[in-house]
Structure formats: C-alpha cells, structure tokens
C-alpha cells in the first residue's frame, strides 16, 4: 500500500512538477487563498503581507505529505522590522533522501502607506537527485497588497516571471505564477479570503478560505481549492508570544497532508 502510494506520489507530484512551497498551516488551512493575508507566513505566499509586522517573528513548520512517513516539507520563516522596511527570510527543504529540493528566500517589504504594501523577493533554489547530481537557480518574486475598503484587502503576486530554470540539463520546472485575490474582514472574529491563481503551463485554480476566531486566542479555519478539488481545515492557537497552528489538506487521490507550525513573536 505504502509502495503504491509512493509511486502515485512520484507520478503526480514530481513529474507534474507542480511542487510548490509550503504556505504554512494557517494559509494552507484556508485553501491556500493567502495572497491578501498578512502574517509572517506571507513570506511563503505574498511577501507584501509582512510589511505591517511591528515585531520580529520566527516560525517553523513541518508538513507530512499524504501521510507518507518519508516525505516531508520542513520550512522556516523569519521577519524583522528595520526602520521603514520589514526584512524577511525563508528556508524550506522538501522531498526524500533520493530527491531533495531546497529553497532559500530573502525579502524586502515596505508599507508605502498604511494601505499600500509592496515587497520584492529573491529565492535561491537547489535540486539534488542521487546519482544525477545537483542544480541551482535564482528566481525573483514581486508582491503587492492594497487596502481598498476598510474591511477589504486586495493582493497580487507574481513569481518567477522570467521562467528561470535549473538549467538545460533538467526538465524540472520552477513554477511561474500570477495570483490575485482579496480578503474581507467581516468582524474581528471572521475573515474570508479568495485567490485566483494561474501557473504557467498548468491549469488555473480558484481558492477560498475562512478563518473564525471562537475566542481571541483560538481560531478555526477551512478552505477549498477548485483545481483539483481539494478541501482544507485547521486551527490556530495564540498564547502570549507563542503561536501554534495546525492545518490539513485533502487531495482527492493522494489523501491527507497534515502540518503544524510553532512560532514566536519577540
């Protein structure tokens, strides 16, 4: 069973080369619809979302893909305000011993007004396949968020617009995408967010998610994405400076991928 799941996994995930960065449990639990959301995990989604952070925050996440023990994504994000800017750093490794992807990112984000946030990011990608060797590449990303109404944030994000590749020796693609969407705050308890995404040479996707804070320190989340049709859920716990989040996604064929993160606000 595990063998066959692993095989299916390889077929679907590696060869379709759509492997994307992990957005962290909060945004994942909201269906990945995070292009107009703001927290430290925006580092992995739309970096403009870190521009309003006022304190340094670090967070670590561990995702288990499709409940297969061997396959995990480990991510770390960090953001720190420095005068008018917020600097962000991210690190992620993904795969099994025989196949490993690593991504390191640095972002520079700035709030040009309390309503307009922008960020640029440079990512360094490494791909390591046993017996085949290593490959490296740089990509760039640009993100913007704009508060159009009191309760409505709009966001847009472009990744790898020049379609950087690992080089001619490999077919592995670093996805180029455009995402845009909005998040609406209905009350201090409730946010609904949506996102449209188009990945180059792949299908378009629509995502939507909801976050509801039962009490100030505890939030429930849920979401869906349309292509393929996936459902998501999760929760978050904020205790003083400590942030704990859990998220799970359900793929129609491959099954569940749970993840959790632990963050600290300095």
């Amino acid at each position, binding site marked *: 069973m595990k063998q066959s799941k692993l095989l299916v996994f390889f077929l679907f995930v590696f060869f379709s080369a759509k492997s994307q960065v992990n957005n962290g449990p909060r945004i994942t639990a909201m269906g990945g619809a995070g292009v107009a959301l703001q927290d430290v995990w925006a580092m992995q989604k739309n970096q403009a979302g870190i521009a309003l952070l006022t304190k340094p925050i670090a967070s670590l996440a561990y995702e288990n893909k499709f409940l297969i023990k061997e396959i995990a994504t480990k991510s770390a994000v960090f953001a720190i305000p420095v005068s008018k800017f917020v600097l962000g750093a991210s690190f992620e490794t993904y795969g099994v011993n025989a196949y490993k992807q690593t991504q390191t990112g640095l972002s520079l984000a700035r709030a040009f007004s309390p309503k307009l946030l922008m960020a640029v990011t440079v990512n360094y990608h490494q791909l390591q396949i046993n017996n085949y060797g290593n490959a490296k590449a740089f990509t760039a990303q640009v993100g913007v968020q704009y508060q159009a109404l009191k309760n409505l944030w709009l966001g847009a994000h472009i990744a790898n617009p020049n379609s950087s590749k690992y080089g001619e020796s490999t077919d592995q693609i670093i996805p180029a995408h455009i995402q845009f969407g909005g998040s609406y705050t*209905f009350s201090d308890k*409730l946010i609904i967010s949506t996102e449209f995404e188009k990945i180059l040479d792949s299908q378009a996707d629509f995502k939507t998610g*909801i976050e509801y804070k039962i009490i100030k320190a505890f939030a429930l989340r849920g979401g869906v994405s*349309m292509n393929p049709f996936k459902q998501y859920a999760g929760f978050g716990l904020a205790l003083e400076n400590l942030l704990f989040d859990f998220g799970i996604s359900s793929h129609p064929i491959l099954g569940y991928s749970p993840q959790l993160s632990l963050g600290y606000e300095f």
Partner: protein
Amino acid sequence: MNFKLSSRITLVFVLCLSIGYSQTKKPVKTGNANYSQNADAIVEYIIESVAENLGEDFDYTEMVDRLNYYRKHPINLNKTSKEQLQELVFLNQVQINALLNHIQKNGKLINVLELQGITGFDLETIKNLLYFASINQPTGFENFSIKNMFARGNGDLLVRYQRGLEPQKGYQIPESSKASRYLGTPDRVFTRFRFNYNNNVQLSVNVEKDAGEQYWATTGKKGPDFVSGSLYLKDIRAFKKIVIGDFALQFGQGLTMWSGLSFGKGADIFTVARQDLGLRSYTSVNEFSFFRGFATQINMGRFDFTPFISSINIDASAVFNPISQTEDIGSIQQSGLHRTQSELNGKGRVNQFIYGGNLQYKTKRLAIGVIGYQSAYSEKFAPNDAPYSKYDFTGKQLSNVGIHYNYNIKNTYFYGEAAHSVGYGFAFVNGFISSLSPVVSVVAFHRNYQKNYQSYFNQAISENTFAKNEEGFYTGLQIKPSKKFELISYFDMFKFPWLKFGVDAPSGGFDVFSQFAYMPNKVTRFSLRYRIRDKEQNSPLSTNINFLEPYRRQNFRLEAQYQVNKSFTLRNRIEVMAFKEESDIQRYGFMAYQDVNYNPLSSKFSGNVRLTMFQTEGFDTRIYAYESDVLYGFSIPAYQNQGIRFYINGRYTLRRGVDFWIRYALTQYSNLTTIGSGLDEINGNQKSEIKLQARIQF
C-alpha cells in the same frame, strides 16, 4: 437529478414579488386565509427552494398541506415549540433556537418587530415566517367538544383530473393481441379529502389512479389503484400524537429511519441539517416509503417515546429461486405504477412488517434519541450476483438501531446520527451550522456510510439513492452583506469505496455550487448561478476490462424577475448545461423561458403563462425546470431534444372556499417524429396535457 435547483430561483422571484405586494397591502399581519394566489406563490417558492433532489413527479403534498394549514391557522410564536417551528422548512436550527431563547430570556413577544433583533433573522425570513405565524393566536384543545368540532372544524375536498391528449401506443394495442399493454385509461384522477379541527384532529383520505391504471382493478386486489388514509390526533393528555392508518416517520438525520419527504443538497444550504418531525400522518400520493398501521408519541416529561407498528404490501419484482422452488424479491419498485399486467403482478406482492420505537430525551439545548426497529418481509431479497450488488441486503429480516443528537450552544448547532444494521454495517453523519457573524453563516458535515450498511427507510444526504457506500465532506457558506446581495456556495467532496452500477471500481467526485443574487428592490431580483459536478463512470472506450473515466457536468444560469405593475410580473431564465466525458467532446444543452404572472390584488382570476425554448444534445445535457402548477400539483420536467414548451395555469375563485384550476401544457419538438419509447410512444412531434381541478372548503 439535482437540477431542480434551477427552478428555485423562479420561485424566489415570485416570492419576492408576493412579499412586496402583501407588504404594501398590509404590513406584516398574516391574517386568516386570504387565499390569494400570492399565498400559493409563497408556498411554491418555499417548495422550490428546498426541493432539489427528488424525482420528476414527486408529490410534495405533505409539505404544502402543512404550510397551508399554518397559513390558515398561524402558529402562535409565544406558545410554539421547536417541533412546530421545524415544520416550517425554511427556518434553520440556529434560527429556531435563537427565537426560543429570545422568548425565554425576554418574555413573550409583544410585537412582531422584535423578530428583527433576533440573531439570524433577516428580513426575508421574517416575512416568510409571518405568513405562517403570529403572536396571539389561540392554540390547543382548550375549548374542545364534539359539538365544537363539527362547528369549527374544516373540511376540504379536492378532485383533480388530468390526461395526455395524444394517444400513446400502450392504449392502442388490442386486448386480443396478448402483448403487454396499458389496461386502464389515459386519465389520471386524484381525490383528496381532509377534515381538520384546530390541528388536533385530522382525517385524510387520498384516492388516486395514474394514467394507464384501471379505475377499478378487476384482477388481483380489486378496487381503486391507490387508497391512503389516516386519522391523526394530537395532544390528548400524554399522547402528543396518535396516527391510525398511513403514517410517516422521521428521526434524526434519516440514516436509520426517515420516510416521506426529505431534502438534499441545494440552494438552501441549511437543509442539509435535517429537521426531523418524528411521527406524521402520511398524506402524499407517492406510493412508497410510508407505513400502514398504528403509531403514537407519548410524552413523559423530558422523554418522548414513539412506538410504531406497520404492515403493508409493497410492490416488488419476482425472481425464481431454483433451489427453494419459491419466488424471491428481485427488486422493490417505487414508481407506484400498475398499468400493465406485469406491473400489476408485482403490485403489493410482498408484505413488509415493521415494528419498533424511538425514545427521545430533550432539554432546551440538547436532544438525544435512540431508535430501533425490525422489518420482516414475506419473501427473501435476492439481489443479482454482479459485483456491485455484493453488499446488498439478502434475507427476510433486518434489525436497525441508531442514535441521533443535536446540541445548541451560542451561535452554533451541532447534529449527527450513528446507525447500525445488525449483522451488516455502520453509518455516521456529523455536522454543524454556525452563524459566524450577522452576515456570514456556515454549515459543514462529514458522512461515512459503509458499503454494507442497510436500511430500507434511509434517506440521509447522499449522492446515491440510499445512504450507503459513501464518504464525504460538505461545507456551505452564506454571505448576506445587505438586503440587496446574497452569495451562497457549497463545496462537497465524496468517495464511493465500493463499485456501483456502471462504475466498476471505487470512485469519487465533487460538487460545487455558487449563486449570487442581487435584489435592488422588493420586487426585482437578478441571480447568477454556477454549478460543477465531477464523477467517474465506466469509460465507453473500455473493451474487455472496464476502466473509469471522469465526467463533468456544469450548469450556468441567469435569471431576472421584475414587476411591471401591481398585477403583472415577468421572469426570464437562461440556462446552459455542459456535459463532458473525458474521452468525448463537450456537449451542450440550452434552455430559455419567459414567464408572465398575473396576480391581481382583488380579482377572482389569476394565472400564469410560460414559453420555453430548449435545445439539448441528448439525455446527458437535459435541463430541469420547476413549473407552476395547480395547487398540490407538481411538475419538474426534464427538457431534452429540441423544441418549444408552453403552459398556462388559471385559477378562478367562485367564492370563498370554492376554487377551480385549469392547466394546459404543450411541448412541440422540432427534431422528432415520435416521442417517448415503448408503450409511452406517441406518433408525432407534439405532446400535450390538460389538468382540471376543483376544491371545496367547508
């Protein structure tokens, strides 16, 4: 079969309009029996907004009866109960609980305007509610006496006649040919009698014959084809309900026991949380899924006990068992049609004997019920030996047990049911409804029905006929930022762990629905709807071994409704259906219609007309639309092929309590020379039908 949604919007329009009207006329008072067609339109709207998954000819009488009753005898909100409010299908559990809590906390409602302050009560809900409820109506057996009963009781006699005007093949075959033919006449005749006293005594009788059936059966069981009746008594000391005759039972979420009407996924997302009504008298003419015998609900403080016993002969096809040399049950037949000799042979062939009970414990917030029953059949079930039937029920006897609950806390309502068929499998459903903010409400539920779960009276929410062999997770979202806008969406993902007919492997799929409505004023409404459904079935490319391929159905619908003047309302709909099998090209279906409703405030006449054009590429791209009909008549036809359909409905009120209806419908196909197949075949390209109905209330 979920396309009936479509028609919903239609009614939505009607509703808005009617509300608009009555609002101008007399603000919020429901009043007694102002039997204008406006009232019917409200009821019709409600039906359309909850009925999505049922068959083309499903009979909603039970619900219409219930709503019409409350139109005439409004519920007293200050004396009402959860059970009673549940009967108003358009209220969801969060709203019901909020209302009851409000009354408990703040004392009796003094003015209906107070309703606006209750969580979850938007203006539309309040308007709907006030058609069926008020705050100072007398209720109960308070002044009961036999003399009163006849003086103050209401009788209601209704007769309907309908007939297709083109001759069908099944009626033209001579008796001498010995070939299969329709033994009766093409008329459908329905007679319905009700006697009501204050909702405490209710006598119902239905007599019906379908087209093709004999008026008076001469072979087999003699007499009219379908007779159903019941005597229903309410609130006699500890006996909250007593039914002698035909009854229906609805408990929990319908996994263990639910007969009669139920709703599935649709534009009213909150109906996925079933509101069980317990024991009811059975008043529909659907000739399946009801009981015949005796049942009662006894109240003992916080406990309610509902024992029931039933013995009924049901229709079943026969298969010969070569080993025991007896006849077994091939399949149960639900159509209730007994037109040919072979259909008549199956009529009431098998006896179904059922007894059991439901014990329920209730507090303000919590309800827990336990149900158990045993069913015995006079013959053995013998499903075919195809692999997809492997987990079907075999044998003569089955015991079912279940436990169901609901719990209300703050803005959230939790519900669920666990069911077990003894010796077979289990089934579970658990979910919640929550109003997250005054603008946003959500509903979500998880279901897991094992492949070998068995219950004949199982109507839990499912993609299949019965809730078995399915796992799924559903989430629904309603956003109403203001009176003018409304967004409704649901997302459902499901898996079928075992094979199904035409699906030779475990399969799965999803169903996503979204509807946006814009109501610039009380009498105008625009809506846009999109629905996409993916499932899998055997590929037509399969040769020796079947393999699966996905197929996708998408519906787009645009609808507009507006009022021209106080008497005329117009409505348009455009609907496109796209069907795509992976290995085939996309096929389309298209439908557009124009409605004209004439609904004057004070005239003895009212009516409506619709002209529809449709063009579909085959069966898979057929489009369903709810049509207006005579009172208690329902029609949700599937449009396919290419042509025009027209219908006209008229109603004439001779005087209070005496009404007549007429309906004529015509479909003309431009690409057919014969319509239908088998015994239903019509030679020609047009099909028409007439309905006449009269009702006397006394």
